């Protein structure tokens, strides 16, 4: 069986110590997977680790900033500024023009969210508070007016439809010999 860490796993199992199920699950990784340097490592603590991580991700050591180590599983992946692909220069000669990205450039953690089809974080022409106020003000106003209209309906005055010829006596199959009762629909 081609596995990385197989011997270590076997040793821990044989010893009988260890946290049990979690050792079984994470002890051995298939050798057909990634090599250890491609998988993000743990949060870098020493400056040498930082330099190595910056080199791995093609960043300058000063620019490299990992996510804070609060157990959320980022490891040493760099924290790039939150800018969407919409803002990047459309006229620059990118290697991948649809993604506005060059080959080998470190990818933002939320890259799939920041593509040009999705979230746009580019600067807005009007301030955010003004936009919020306008949108929610309009929606709130319309909802309020619809609610009022539901409570106090107003429509054209209507009455049941009035038919001529004594309520269409003959058309409705009344006897032509008999004299129908007089239906008066008006008042002069």
């Amino acid at each position, binding site marked *: 069986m081609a596995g990385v860490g197989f011997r270590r796993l076997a040793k821990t199992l044989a010893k009988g110590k260890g946290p049990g199920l979690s050792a079984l699950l994470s002890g051995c990784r298939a050798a057909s997977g990634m090599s250890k340097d491609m998988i993000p490592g743990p949060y870098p603590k020493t400056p040498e680790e930082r330099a190595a991580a910056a080199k791995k991700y093609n960043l300058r050591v000063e620019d490299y900033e990992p996510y804070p180590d609060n157990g959320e599983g980022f490891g040493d992946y760099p924290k790039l500024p939150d800018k969407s692909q919409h803002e990047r220069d459309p006229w620059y000669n990118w290697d991948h023009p649809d993604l506005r990205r*060059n*080959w080998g450039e470190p990818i933002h953690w939320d890259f799939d969210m920041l593509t040009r089809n999705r979230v746009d974080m*580019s*600067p807005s022409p009007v301030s955010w508070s003004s936009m919020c106020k306008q949108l929610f003000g309009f929606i709130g106003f319309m909802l309020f007016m619809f609610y009022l209209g539901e409570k106090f309906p107003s429509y054209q005055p209507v009455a049941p439809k009035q038919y001529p010829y004594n309520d269409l006596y003959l058309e409705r199959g009344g006897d032509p010999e008999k004299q129908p009762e007089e239906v008066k629909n008006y008042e002069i």
Partner: protein
Amino acid sequence: MAEYRETPLAERPKTLDPNEYFNVSLEKRGAEEARAAFRANLKRQYQMQLNNPHRKELIEDPALTNWVQARGNIYPHFRPTQRTSMFGLAFGVVPLFFFYYVFKTTRDWKEERIRSGTDTQKYRLTS
């Protein structure tokens, strides 16, 4: 209009950034040069591979590999802390109880209405 304010979802454009125009120090320009050198090197690598007439395989992007592996291997670096446990509870446990309660109550109301005959809805899309 001159007072452009940044907000969480709308950042300051580079042409309105005062640091571009006022704080032009040697270190900053040195940093920009170093970044440009990195970029140029990567571009060169890509172009060499792209225009290589003997290349038969796909050009592999190590940054993409790193990203994919990082997104897939979150568990090895996961640590149960107070914050992560809060998230786990809020998204994993609370919805169960909340939705059970909501569905049970609304359907009990409907059952009561149907049984007592006060149900006024004649046509239902969801029976």
